[in-house]
């Protein structure tokens, strides 16, 4: 069973030989970039460089997936925001939104551009997916991610305003989020056409550390349902933070699997959702994988598996400066321990 078969069977809930170790979020490494002779700031605007860098984590460490994009600004840029890729940065700075689309409450009545699938870097992502798929697609599952409606709304307008309006003028926010869902679906459909095997919806702005479970149910859940029901490929819903109070709502949104981070108590989540639910997680991608020792990496992998995850998967993007020995330790431990449960 190769990595691709293992991951696809997992999504179909068919028997597999061991727990896979993969992700639906960014996982490029500095070692990968350097091996290829690229610069981090350069890969965001070049489909081939992006795809080759994405493939390098599998090639170097046997990580069981290939993921593009690398940054979180694709949808916002296509909608009309101006992004900053920090072209001259020496180190690693991920692109951010420089200019928002909505500057105040009165500007919230926007339209999704009719040619959204041809705007910004959406065509570049299609190309990157095709290259990645042709490169390693027979060996690993190729995935992509989109933002969740609330997180995307927090990019195209001030998050501060969005949060307050979620409380004061929920109707207005609901309308905007529904529109965001439409935009996200258009982008996700392009990724599907380009051949991805699964799509992760990253609704990390709507964590239960920030919003009440009530607001989550009333405001965040409906557009998330809309997105998931529109997807044809397997989908994963990721939310950061203490998600224990909302895992049932996350499942209700309709993804194939949910993804949670280390602040989620997976033993509890497993109890709540039952044996057959696909729960991906839940290690700290920075404090364990980047700054932890090899032993911490190994014990954390075992803990994730013992707690009952369906796949070991980081709680966030893997930070590129991850030491190679920790990536090796992670994969080695999964191979040794992942079949025992």
């Amino acid at each position, binding site marked *: 069973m190769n990595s691709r078969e293992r991951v696809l069977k997992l999504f179909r809930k068919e028997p597999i030989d061991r727990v896979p170790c993969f992700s639906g979020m960014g996982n490029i490494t500095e070692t990968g970039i350097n091996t290829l002779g690229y610069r981090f700031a350069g890969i965001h605007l070049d489909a081939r460089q992006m795809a080759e860098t994405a493939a390098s984590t599998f090639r170097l460490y046997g990580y069981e997936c290939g993921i593009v994009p690398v940054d979180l600004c694709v949808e916002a840029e296509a909608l009309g925001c101006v992004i*900053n890729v*920090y072209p001259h940065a020496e*180190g*690693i*700075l*991920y692109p*951010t*939104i420089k200019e928002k689309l909505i500057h105040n409450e009165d500007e919230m009545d926007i339209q999704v551009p009719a040619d959204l699938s041809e705007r910004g870097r959406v065509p570049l992502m299609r190309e990157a997916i095709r290259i990645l798929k042709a490169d390693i697609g027979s060996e690993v599952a190729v995935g992509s991610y989109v933002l969740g409606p609330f997180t995307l709304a927090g990019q195209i307008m001030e*998050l*501060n305003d969005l*949060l*307050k309006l*979620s*409380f*004061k003028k929920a109707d207005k926010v609901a309308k905007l989020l529904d529109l965001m869902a439409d935009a996200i679906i258009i982008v996700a459909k392009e990724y599907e056409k380009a051949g991805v095997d699964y799509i992760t919806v990253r609704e990390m702005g709507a964590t239960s*550390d*920030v*919003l*009440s479970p009530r*607001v989550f149910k009333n405001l965040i859940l409906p557009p998330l349902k809309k997105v998931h029901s529109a997807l044809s490929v397997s989908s994963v819903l990721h939310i950061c*933070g*203490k998600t224990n109070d909302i895992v049932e709502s996350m499942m209700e949104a309709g993804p194939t699997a949910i993804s949670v981070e280390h*602040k989620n108590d997976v033993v509890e989540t497993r109890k709540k959702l039952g044996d057959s639910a696909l729960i991906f997680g839940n290690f700290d*991608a*920075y*404090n364990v994988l980047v*700054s932890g020792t090899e032993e911490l990496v190994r014990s954390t992998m075992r803990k994730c598996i013992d707690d009952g995850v369906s796949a070991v998967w980081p709680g*966030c*993007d893997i*930070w590129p*400066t991850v030491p190679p020995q920790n990536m090796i330790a992670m994969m080695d431990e999964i191979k040794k321990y992942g079949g025992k449960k």
Partner: protein
Amino acid sequence: MADETKKKEILEKLRNGVIQYDEDACREGAQEAVDAGLDANEAIFDGLVSGMEEVGRLFEAQEYFVPEILMCADALYAGLDILKPHCKQMDLGVRGSVVIGTVEGDVHDIGKNLVRMMFDVAGFTVYDLGRDVPLDQFVEEQIKTDSELVCLSAMMTTSMVGMPKVIEKIKEKNPDCMIMIGGAPTSKELADKWGADGYAEDAGNALKEAIKMVAFLKKLRDEKLNK
């Protein structure tokens, strides 16, 4: 001097105005305090800040979430803007100036703004550099203003890693400057490793930390008054 009943009524109005995120009530309460000749520092700490402490409690109890806190902060500022010009310089033993901002690569500033609110309340001179701030700018601003404190914020893991560079540069030029780091991905271990003097405890939320700091200042003031 306002009589005790009137004073109590005004302080209660300020406190409840913050808790109920009622900007108008805070504005009215602040104006009444000024008109009645109430000590502005007292109105701030026993009215507005006392309200914010209760907001912190409601947040801990998960009755309030971030949207509510942001509205409460707006209400606090509505009152503070009116009271501030009437403040005599407070002597809490902690006054000074602070450089604060979100590091380059991060455009999130909610946590930073709530920590800033605490410094505004305490009468600090605040040099707010905003968000997505190039690392060198923190160093330059600290030297230019000779601030005792520099606060670095990052909400994303992907931007936090710029912090040790700033800490190193500032400490190199000015070893006495205190540096605090905050934001979701930071931790005590990272603060120690990077040579920062403090960090936002319970890194999961900078908001709670800001409220705790405000409460601490209030306690300092109360102790001083009771001496």
